[in-house]
């Protein structure tokens, strides 16, 4: 059984995905789809993409055996796939490089991006600078305040940061406004989506640009352990690091676990646990699970992590959940923060709060497993951008 499939002609994974967009965008999406198919078959394009991953981003990223952490937790050996060691500090750059090269190939000189925590915005601004593209990044006003450092980085890289002022002024609203801007400027702008969300072919394209995470992990793990990990854990907001990690393992006998943000708890209204608590609906161009009210109005999600507070999820994750190939769990703000502290103290690595969600689940799982088993965690990004949030949260408690 192949779960991670090429989406059908409607761009669907099972019933999920599709292209629920204004008519004006259908042509640009078709052009993108065709351009992508050709690019993915073109050895020169792929060579370029891998060249920049290696020489610019610093791939392959390390596979770190967390020895001290493993012995503290007890149980399975914990390995970390170090996407935090990428240029710009997260897995987002893999996709940004891929899409920037594609934009150039399609003759587009201007890119639009949306960002929540700012990681994708920084990645987009970075590749725009590198490849000589003009870049506009849409970001919720609220997130602009929360992530001042990343906003400054984007500006330093020459990007224009455009505040999204609708709704809760976070990622959902930035995405709405980026799409609206794209509708108006689709003839000469390339829309660089940061996760496996949006209309087809975005979820498919972003997965293809992120699958390098899983492919590398597989090779590295085989070299180190002579086999595959028993379990793999990755955090899920839109879900791009997770799908990139899972994709090459879907047909293998490996347990896959995606971790959502439970925020203040899934029994409160303050969470972003789309797969745990969401229902089927359409958001930002695809059919997936999302957090909404009974009338179909989208509800603003909550998480301490500005990278996970998205009300929808990549349609492929919705499919992987329904087909029971991937198990999805949720982790609260508190649990994620505790996991972050443990990793920092034991291994000298400060992960992004997003990644700390995956860690929290990995600790729980590892503790239940025998010591001859292995668990691999996708450490999607580093925590530099979250230091401010952590300081506010911990004021008075830091030694």
């Amino acid at each position, binding site marked *: 059984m192949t779960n991670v499939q090429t989406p059908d002609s409607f761009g669907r994974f099972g019933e999920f995905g599709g292209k629920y967009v204004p*008519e004006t965008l259908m042509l640009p999406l078709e052009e993108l789809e065709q351009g992508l198919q050709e690019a993915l078959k073109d050895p020169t394009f792929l060579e370029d993409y891998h060249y920049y991953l290696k020489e610019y981003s610093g791939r392959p990223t390390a596979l770190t055996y967390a020895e001290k952490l493993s012995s503290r937790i007890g149980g399975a050996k914990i390995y970390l796939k170090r996407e935090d060691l990428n240029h710009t500090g997260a897995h987002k750059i893999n996709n940004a490089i891929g899409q920037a090269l594609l934009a150039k190939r399609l003759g587009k000189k201007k890119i639009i991006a949306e960002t929540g925590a700012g990681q994708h915005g920084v990645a987009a601004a970075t590749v725009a600078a590198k490849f000589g593209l003009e870049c506009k990044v849409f970001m919720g006003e609220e997130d602009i305040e929360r992530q001042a450092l990343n906003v400054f980085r984007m500006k330093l890289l020459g990007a224009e940061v455009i505040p999204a002022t609708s709704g809760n002024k976070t990622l*959902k609203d930035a995405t709405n406004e980026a799409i609206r801007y794209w509708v108006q400027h689709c003839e000469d702008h390339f829309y660089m989506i940061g996760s496996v969300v949006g209309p087809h072919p975005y979820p498919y394209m972003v997965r293809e640009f992120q699958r390098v995470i899983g492919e590398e992990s597989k090779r590295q793990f085989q070299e180190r352990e002579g086999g595959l990990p028993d379990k793999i854990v990755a955090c899920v907001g839109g879900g791009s690091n997770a799908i990139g990690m899972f994709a090459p393992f879907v047909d293998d006998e490996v347990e896959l676990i995606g971790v959502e943000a439970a925020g203040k708890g899934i029994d409160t209204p303050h969470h972003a646990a789309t797969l745990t608590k969401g229902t089927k609906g359409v958001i930002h161009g695809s059919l997936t699970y999302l957090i909404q009210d009974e009338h179909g109005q989208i509800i603003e999600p909550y998480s301490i992590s500005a990278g996970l507070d998205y009300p929808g999820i990549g349609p492929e994750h919705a499919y992987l959940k329904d087909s029971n190939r991937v198990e999805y769990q949720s982790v609260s703000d508190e649990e994620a923060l505790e996991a972050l502290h443990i990793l920092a103290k034991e291994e000298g690595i400060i992960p992004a709060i997003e990644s700390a969600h995956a860690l929290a689940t990995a600790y729980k799982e590892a503790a239940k497993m025998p010591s001859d088993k292995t668990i691999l965690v996708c450490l999607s990004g580093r925590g530099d951008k979250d230091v401010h949030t952590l300081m506010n949260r911990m004021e008075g408690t830091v030694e």
Partner: protein
Amino acid sequence: MTTYLERLPKHDKLFIPFIMSGDPTPELTIKLALLLEEAGASVLELGVPYSDPLADGPVIQRASKRALAHKTTIKSTMELAGEMRRRGLKIPIILFTYFNPVLQLGEESFFALAKQNQVDGLLIPDLPFEESGRIREKCSEHAITYISLVAPTSKERMNTITEHAQGFLYCISSLGVTGVRKEFSEELYAFLEEVKKKSNVPTAVGFGISESEHIQTLKPYCDGFVVGSALINMIEQKEKQFKVDEEKTLHELKQQIEELISPLLAER
């Protein structure tokens, strides 16, 4: 069951106003519908407010927000349509809604409510042709007219869209979201002529129609006009006035609308 075509007045050129259900209040939505009919509307586009309207600009987004504050839903919008009928509205009512509210209400409830409240048509701006198969089928089963949109970027898709068009064909004037525009591109004329040539149903231009000059200039190239943001703008500006003297405000609004569509009225 009376259908869209049976309700359609015999106007040479169609005036298709858009108003948002529940904006500024549900009661005023009904009065505005009746006023628009009196002012010469051929078809009413009745909007269902949505939290994330991808095809709309800031004016309609604000109207959505106001309507949601009045707890307007897709269900209450259709009930409002029913109330409009009871108060004598005769022209066809097209429900303008994003797909998600329809999906959540469920097909069965949707069509039952549409029938019960004499809604004649459906327009879903985020449901392109490829995704609309099932809903079109259901619409034809229930004698609901399904309105399609065609954009300047539709190119080869135009043939399929025009072939399946019902009621009227909504021609998007230019790239972008709904909202007032100052001028239109030269290419618009050729686009409109091509659509008109291919279409078996009347063509109506929308997105940005805000001045009587627009209507005057574009009149030879299409069969009608959709006016949304310009109208919502007028309503928004009068929000406070409505509370002071409703009747007078409605009267002023009617004059403003008649002024805007005067090039159409001149021909009637």
